């Protein structure tokens, strides 16, 4: 059955994760195993992507229970594109991991957590059921808890407890909100919720419930003023974990916002989406300011997650197909570039033994290749053409202007400058400058860090330079999101 | 003893098959039939007729229920009496019982019966420390009851 394709991206990592438990002590085997399985899964997902782009969404009714009653998995283009991106990042991380992690960390189920994180993230992208989304959120969060505490350093424990607490709170708010929604519309299937909310034109309490959901996802997505928890916990664990977090976790929140506020709560967009635009603006401003505020290179990158999320929310807020397309493009682009940056600053911190920018200089004399990778990554991040960030930003700003949101567009531009400055400081102060004679270069390590980064950057560049191959599909996602009927019909088959 | 119980259960189940009614009632009647059967055939089966011991247990249970009811009556009095005119305290009760089982049963019975509550058992199971609601008035009476229990338990276990 072809509809089983929808479940493969969730199940393969799940099984891999379980197997990884069994062989967790045999490091050489488990490493190789994880790498092979990730490659396999990526190939499978690539096939699913190909299939979906040719034949349209694949809808799987789990256990053959009809759509609104059982759990449906909806592998539409949006989901599968994001799942594919997730796997690309996973691929880079799994090859980066052995060098970056200590043997102990690997032994203590890094690969299991890693696979289950992928499984949870993919599940969250694919599921068409709101409560099931909650469950997948918990899977990926729990895996992230496992990853964030891995190693049990002082700082790590301190920051992870805050991370767990905030996420626990927002999870509880999430289930409660699902209950509220169930009370009003009597279902937890997203397509049916969308249909029913549409039928009553999103009466008052539904809007309030929508806003609660917005805050739930907003907390995960790290929007203003909900992002406070994010930066420090994200830099406490190993860089490879930071990369997975930075690339995937907040993006699941954004994805959920995108889904929910494109198919369900769209009937009072003059209130809700207008609010999003202002929140997006504040997220951009404070995120960019945050990125400027520190000399800790990891923290700089972590803070940079926030304005990116602001950009994506902007695309949701302007509520037109260009904006949606921009959000999706930016989402994909940002997932990759955040992974790149975390991996790179992780490499720098590993090679220099510090993440304090004031103590790093002249690295380019030892690691020119890393330096140029970082330079390109900074440009991608700031949305400088012709890289992937540019296309996303262009679409987002076009979307904003189509909806007459000039001020926010200008704020977005200003934030871009601060973003560029915030990361370029790392290049100028860390890579440029006099040679630091005290460094003992470790070219081998640098090379093994660089390869995964090159792999990811290749996609960043491809998404920009080769935008023609991607844009039509993403534009079609934008249109698709503007017309929730398509989604509803493909699920409910009415 | 175990053998007898097993036999009894088998008889009860056979009875259910015979009557083709699979309810608790038919099981119960089958069981009673079994007891009778075992009683009649007690010569041919090794070990003493187990229901003898069961009977002693039942006697102990009734003794216990009686004491439990009295105990609750006492408690009610204390609960609803406006004045706290009792004098609690802990006293030691030497016991002849040895095995953990016996001690457990005894302490349980002590705890559920009037005015007393076991608090601790000494090392070697020789002394039970008992908290009494009103220690002065009827320490001896209490000890008498406990001794009865001790006897009853020993009859069951030995």
């Amino acid at each position, binding site marked *: 059955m072809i509809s089983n394709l929808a479940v493969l991206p969730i199940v393969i990592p799940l099984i891999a994760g379980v197997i990884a438990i069994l062989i967790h002590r045999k490091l050489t085997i488990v490493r190789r195993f994880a790498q092979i399985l990730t490659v396999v899964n990526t190939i499978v997902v690539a096939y699913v992507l190909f299939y979906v782009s040719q034949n349209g969404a694949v809808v799987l009714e789990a*256990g053959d*229970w009809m759509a*609104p*009653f059982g*759990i449906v*998995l909806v592998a539409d283009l949006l989901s599968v594109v994001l799942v594919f991106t997730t796997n690309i990042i996973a691929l880079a991380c799994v090859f980066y991991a052995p060098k970056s992690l200590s043997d*102990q960390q690997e032994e*203590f189920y890094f690969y299991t957590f890693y696979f289950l994180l992928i499984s949870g993230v993919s*599940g969250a992208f694919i*599921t068409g059921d709101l409560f099931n989304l909650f*469950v997948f959120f*918990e899977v990926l969060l*729990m895996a992230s*808890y*496992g990853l964030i*505490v*891995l190693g*049990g350093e002082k700082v790590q424990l301190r920051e992870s407890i805050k991370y767990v607490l*905030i996420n626990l709170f927002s999870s509880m708010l999430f289930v*409660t909100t699902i209950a*509220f929604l*169930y009370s*009003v519309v*009597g279902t937890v*299937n997203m397509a049916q919720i969308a249909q*029913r909310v549409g039928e*009553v034109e999103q*009466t*008052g*309490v*539904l809007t*309030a*419930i929508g*806003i*609660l959901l917005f*805050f739930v996802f907003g907390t995960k997505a790290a929007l203003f*003023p909900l992002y*406070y928890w994010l930066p*420090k916990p994200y830099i406490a664990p190993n860089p490879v974990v930071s990369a997975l977090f930075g690339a995937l976790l907040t993006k699941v929140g954004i994805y959920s916002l995108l889904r929910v506020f494109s198919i369900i709560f769209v009937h*009072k967009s003059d209130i809700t989406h207008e*609010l999003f635009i202002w929140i997006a603006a504040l997220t951009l401003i*404070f995120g960019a*300011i*945050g990125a*400027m*505020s520190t000399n800790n290179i990891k923290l700089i990158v972590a*803070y940079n997650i926030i304005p990116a999320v602001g950009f994506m929310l902007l695309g949701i807020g302007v509520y037109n197909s260009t904006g949606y397309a921009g959000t999706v493009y930016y989402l994909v682009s940002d997932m990759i570039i955040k992974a790149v940056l975390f991996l790179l600053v992780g490499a720098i911190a590993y090679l220099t033994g510090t993440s304090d920018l004031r103590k790093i200089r*002249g690295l380019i004399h030892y690691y020119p290749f890393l330096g140029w990778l970082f330079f390109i990554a900074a440009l991608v991040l700031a949305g400088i*053409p012709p890289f992937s960030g540019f296309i996303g930003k262009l679409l987002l*700003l076009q979307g904003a202007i189509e909806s007459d949101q*000039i001020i926010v567009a*200008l704020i977005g*531009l200003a934030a871009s*400058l601060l973003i*560029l400055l915030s990361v370029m400081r790392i290049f*100028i102060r860390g890579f*440029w*400058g006099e040679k630091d004679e005290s460094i003992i270069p470790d070219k081998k390590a640098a090379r093994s860090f660089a390869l995964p980064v090159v792999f990811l950057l290749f996609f960043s560049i491809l998404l920009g330079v080769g*935008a023609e191959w991607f*844009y039509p599909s993403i534009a079609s996602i934008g249109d698709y999101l503007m017309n929730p009927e398509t989604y509803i019909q493909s699920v409910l088959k009415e | 003893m175990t053998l007898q119980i097993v036999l009894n259960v088998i008889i009860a189940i056979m009875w259910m098959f015979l009557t083709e009614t699979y309810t608790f009632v038919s099981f119960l009647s089958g069981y009673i039939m079994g007891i009778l059967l075992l009683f009649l055939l007690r010569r041919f089966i090794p070990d003493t007729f187990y229901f003898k011991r069961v009977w002693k247990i039942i006697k102990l249970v009734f003794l216990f229920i009686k004491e439990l009811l009295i105990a609750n009556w006492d408690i009610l009095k204390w609960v609803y009496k406006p004045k706290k005119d009792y004098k609690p305290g802990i006293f030691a009760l030497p016991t002849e019982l040895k095995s953990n089982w016996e001690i457990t049963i005894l302490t349980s019975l002590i705890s559920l019966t009037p005015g007393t509550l076991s608090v601790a058992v000494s090392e070697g199971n020789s002394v039970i420390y008992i908290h009494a609601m009103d220690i002065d008035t009827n320490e001896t009476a209490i000890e008498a009851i406990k001794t009865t229990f001790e006897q009853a338990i020993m009859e069951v276990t030995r």
Partner: protein
Amino acid sequence: MLFAVFLPVLLAIFIPYLSKWKEKIHTGYFVLLAPLAVFLYFIPHIGNDFTPVTQSFNWIPSMDIGFEFYLDGLSLLFVLLISGIGTLVTLYSIFYLHTSERLDQFYVYLLIFMTAMFGVVLSDNVFVLYAFWELTSISSFLLIGYWNYKERSRYGALKSMLITIFGGLSMFGGFILLTTITGTNSIQEMIQQTDTILSSPYFGLILALILLGAFTKSAQFPFHIWLPDAMEAPTPVSAYLHSATMVKAGIFLVARFSPIFSESDWFFVLVSGFGIITLVWGSFMAVRQTDLKGILAFSTISQLGMIMAMLGFGTKLAIYAAVFHILNHATFKGSLFMIAGIVDHESGTRDIRKLGGLATLMPISATLAFFGTFSMAGVPLPFLNGFYSKELFFDASLELHESSIAFANILAQAIPYLAVFGSIFTFVYSMYLVFGTFMGKKKLDQLPAKPHEAPVGMLISPMILIVGVILIGLFPNFVNSTFLAHTAEAIYGAPVDKHVQFWHGWDSPPLYMSLVVVGIGTVLALTIKYWKNIYQYFPGKLSLNKAYDFLVDQSEKTSARITNSYMNGSLNRYMSLILIAIVSCTFAILWITDGFAWDTSNLADITVHEILIAVAMAVAAIFTIFTKNKVASILILGVVGYGLSLLFILYSAPDLALTQLVVETITVALFLLCFYHLPDLRERTEGKAKKLRNLIISVGFGAMMTIVAISAHSTKLFEKISDYFLETAHDIGGGDNVVNVILVDMRGVDTLFEIVVLGIAALAIYGLIKLRNKKGAK
């Protein structure tokens, strides 16, 4: 054309390999080929019967982004400048840069820059133009930071990048607005829709944004401050990027959009206003400089201001003059930079206070310098091109038309005076520069090296440029009809035919203006040491540079202050802010949408025992706050949990009750275990205000949840899907316990992953406990 544009970049790919032989062949020789080839490729386009050429190459057709190259007079001028000067600069650099330097990097950047510049001036598609525009900023950044071990170099690189990318982004914003209004990405098609653009409410914003891009790139006041610091780059770069080409990109942009914008009076006010201020300020400040390249940098600023001002005039004459001056400036300024480089190279310093009397030691350089500076100063000599364009400038400044904006009229009145004022100082610094360096006393003891004439190779390029100065000076109309007229036409929108001549007769006001400039200029130049003190009265602390430093510094410090003020790592703070946001927004939405609902018709009966249980649970929950004994608080929590399972019992949810009981018991046990060794609870020590704040936040949140819950319950609008479960559980699901059937069948995925969650938790806990033991063993 696509190949021509990308040729330098393609070559750049091979540079790292080619530079391996740099000991044998200077890498510059390979590089030279690229601009030369492009120059030769475009040169045949010059001619009388010039027609614009369009060539399109797909890039992202679905977004209407493509390499749509448009070669008209304007772009032709720039392409030739870029490739021509590029060739000369590369040649010069071969002798300037020693092979011990990282030549590969240098030339890669330079080639990237060339491609970027070609792209900027040839692209008709605004987004492609923007892409190349940013690329020029980036390559400029890398070139300025070429000697990045120097602090000043890094400083200059960052400054130039920040300012130019700032402008680039704003221009980008303007472009997006333009494309949204016109529905096209092509500049030429936009020009067709000038009326639409002018009547758009966003026109002012578009104008401002795009001009911001142009002004930053072309170092217009007050954004000029990056240019002097860009002089940290190797001199070939200064000559090429920061005088002849990149800084003219802004000029190009204004020229490119002139057909649209010049219809607006604001265009004149802004472009000419800023241009003339830049002219005056640049030339005035140039006198103050002591570094040769500093003088040249301010000179460039001032000259760019002048061109900008002329573009703003928008008259036929002014545009022609602007175009002419673009060409002229490239020739004399390029050569002067190269000579400054030679002086620096040979004498070891660029400090004009240490230099003097070099003419005898470096006669050829000195001669070239004299031609260059005199042309720059606009000295009325018939063989200096600078004079012609300056006089045209004066001429144009006198024939400004009336405007509907009062300020524009005042500006128009003031411009001739400002032009003269600026030109006087141009004259002064030009003389100061050339005489200070080559004439006067020799101060050889102050020089780090013993100066002598440069090698011939180094002299070729400036010499060619000076030949250009003289040739154009001698035959100012030589390239008019074949070349500059086309350029001017592209800007003006109608044919421009201008015949330039040295002598206009006595009744020509520009002549008197020139004479005033030369006269006063000479006096001032001679008396410079008497009045130079006035510069001390100019603010040091309040200068624009200080402002920039302050801004950059503050961008970090203020950011840090703002961020640290709320990102203080305090969970209380995080939670509070999050909760306040949720509560206030949700209440606001409820209020706005009138979402509160109250419907008691569908409620279950109220029973006493349930109320009592509720009260008991509430009391227990509240007492978790007040208890000071850790065991007590954990047990009270347990009571709440058991209370909940009691509610599950009462409301017909036995399976839930079972689970809740087990879970609660284990949780309490875990609580006790984990907190066994931790200290007991303490008195809540926070102040009254904080207690109150916490109280308000938590009560607000609880109240919000309750209100939304009641409203949600009061607006049950649809049949629940659960009826289906009750109907099908037995027949299809094969079980009578519907909850179980839902869990294992209909929502089996949930259950599977719920188990996964538990499993991960177990592993994580195991890791948490075990990993420490191992560490302890070490």
